[in-house]
């Protein structure tokens, strides 16, 4: 009996067993990322100028009535929406970036590659500059609405160009870059037309800030994120096969054009909804998927959740940094993600080269 057991333990694992083990390791990485994210969120809630101790925060989260009214307002109306916005926006950008890099077959792609950020900025700038034209609509609603619509419009234009011209991911990237330059020129035109007050607002919007977070905004981004995450996971195997090349994927029965179109619409929706409330936040959608790829590889059933978690974790940490860098002042989070993202990206590139 003991000999049989020993033989069974010594027997080499079959390929299916080895694959199962590899998947268990990936699942463990996802759990660790989730745990790190929970800690980071707690730290983020506890960081701020009012100096609420962590013990009071945990107690307040479990029993809100135990807090003073002022502390309750700070916790539930200021800190929590801010932290949750970092969570959902980071997750949305991470998920969008992962899909973008796959469907464009380009490791440098991000949710901004096709000019979505420039389009959202243009929409916001138009709302700010032309606000006297629409006095019946409050600017708090008008700015995100215009940013959202302009981002969707730019995606529609790219899809139309692709349909008219045909071509693969290279054509798509070229269209996106051309559109981005055109949109940036229009943003500059808005700068030129704006008065000093409007110009200040445009510049602040384009820096990216979580300060405009509110529960309805967070809810809208969260619902969009959940919906898009579900759709992306349904395409996980198709996206995995797309990594073996477009022709190969098509030969395996993947409708490449359809998958690409669906992903682009979904990425636009995610990015537009996320950016319209917080402004331009770069690098999360670029670096998040790269970290996820290093951790779990490119099997998209693990890569997509990992990229979503990495994006959320990155923006949550950036949120903490934005509140801690200069005491008493919240640095716009777009500046922090760029400052932290650039060296992180360089480290990734150098690390990969050293590994090669």
């Amino acid at each position: 009996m003991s000999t049989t057991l020993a033989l069974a333990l010594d027997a080499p694992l079959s390929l299916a067993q080895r694959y199962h083990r590899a998947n268990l390791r990936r699942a463990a990485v996802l759990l660790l990322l989730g745990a790190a994210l929970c800690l980071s969120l707690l730290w983020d809630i506890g960081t701020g100028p009012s100096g609420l101790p962590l013990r009071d925060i945990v107690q307040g989260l479990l029993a809100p009535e135990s807090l003073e009214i002022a502390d309750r307002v700070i916790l539930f109306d200021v800190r929590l929406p801010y932290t949750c916005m970092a969570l959902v926006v980071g997750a949305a950008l991470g998920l969008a970036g992962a899909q973008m890099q796959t469907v464009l077959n380009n490791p440098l792609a991000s949710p901004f590659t096709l000019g979505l950020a420039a389009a959202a900025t243009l929409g916001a700038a138009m709302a700010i500059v032309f606000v006297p034209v629409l006095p019946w609509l409050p600017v708090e609603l008008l700015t995100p609405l215009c940013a959202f619509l302009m981002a969707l419009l730019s995606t529609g234009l790219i899809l139309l160009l692709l349909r008219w011209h045909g071509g693969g991911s290279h054509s798509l990237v070229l269209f996106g870059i051309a559109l981005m330059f055109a949109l940036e020129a229009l943003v500059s035109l808005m700068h030129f037309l704006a008065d000093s007050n409007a110009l200040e607002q445009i510049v602040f919007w384009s820096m990216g800030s979580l300060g405009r977070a509110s529960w309805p905004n967070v809810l809208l981004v969260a619902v969009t994120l959940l919906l898009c995450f579900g759709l992306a996971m349904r395409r996980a195997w198709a996206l995995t096969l797309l990594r073996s090349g477009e022709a190969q994927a098509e030969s395996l029965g993947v409708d490449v054009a359809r998958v690409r179109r669906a992903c682009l619409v979904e990425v636009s929706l995610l990015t537009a909804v996320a950016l319209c409330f917080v402004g331009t936040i770069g690098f999360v959608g670029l670096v998040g998927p790269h970290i996820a790829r290093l951790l779990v590889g490119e099997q998209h059933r693990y890569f997509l959740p990992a990229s979503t978690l990495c994006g959320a974790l990155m923006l949550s940490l950036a949120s903490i940094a934005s509140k801690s860098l200069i005491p008493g002042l919240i640095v716009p989070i777009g500046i922090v993600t760029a400052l932290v993202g650039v060296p992180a990206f360089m480290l990734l590139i150098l690390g990969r080269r050293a590994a090669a």
Partner: protein
Amino acid sequence: MSLQITALSVQRQRRCIVEDVSLATPLAAGSLTALVGPNGAGKSTLIHALAGLLPSSGQLLLDEVPLSALPLRQRSRQVALLPQSLPQSVGLSPYELLLGGLLANGVGRREAETRIDAVLRRLGLLTLAMQRLDTLSGGQRQMVALAQVLARQPRLLLLDEPTSALDLRWQLAVLGAVGEDVRQRSAIGVIALHDLNLALRACDRVLVLAGGRLQADGAPDAVLDAALLRRVYGISARIEPCSQGRAQLIVDQLLPETHLEALPS
């Protein structure tokens, strides 16, 4: 089972790359056909058109059924394409790639695992099964791509220069494995090749393509002769039996370009 090609033409960017290719007799079940010709002859384009990846005119009948009438998914279960190579920077293991391909083709999980194990064992790739593709050499990636095609067990195998990154031993091993698979399952194999000696050694039939047109079609040792090689490749060469009695191509010299017959461009 048979594959009939009639008046097949493929245009790319308003240029005719493959023009009016018709076979006198269909490609038969259990046969391996070599598609040969100089660079730019249209071999890859023809292979991709047969796989349904390029729009084409004319008729392709697999067992009397037009391939173009089959929905993408159904077609992918019957026709498998081996590309010239897999992309270099892919963070997937060969096992994942094969599993994904089989699941996409509607093969059950258990059956997929059995097939993957068998094909990786047959091609001697078991030790590479869990490594990332971006750590493998070009030749190893090509073998993985071949494993994916064989694991799918398609009725029509289309292989686009599968030996281009392989050493001599693996070239013979690949052609042996493909030939064996095609004969055992009574499938049809079409393989684009540059090495005419490999075509002579392993294939039952050869299609010679040049300038997008079919120049010759038949048994390799009957079709490949000095006149055709001079006309299509611009070389002086002869086919002679080697010590084992097999036909072998011996190249004497490169001829000036004037010996190339004007082929339609």
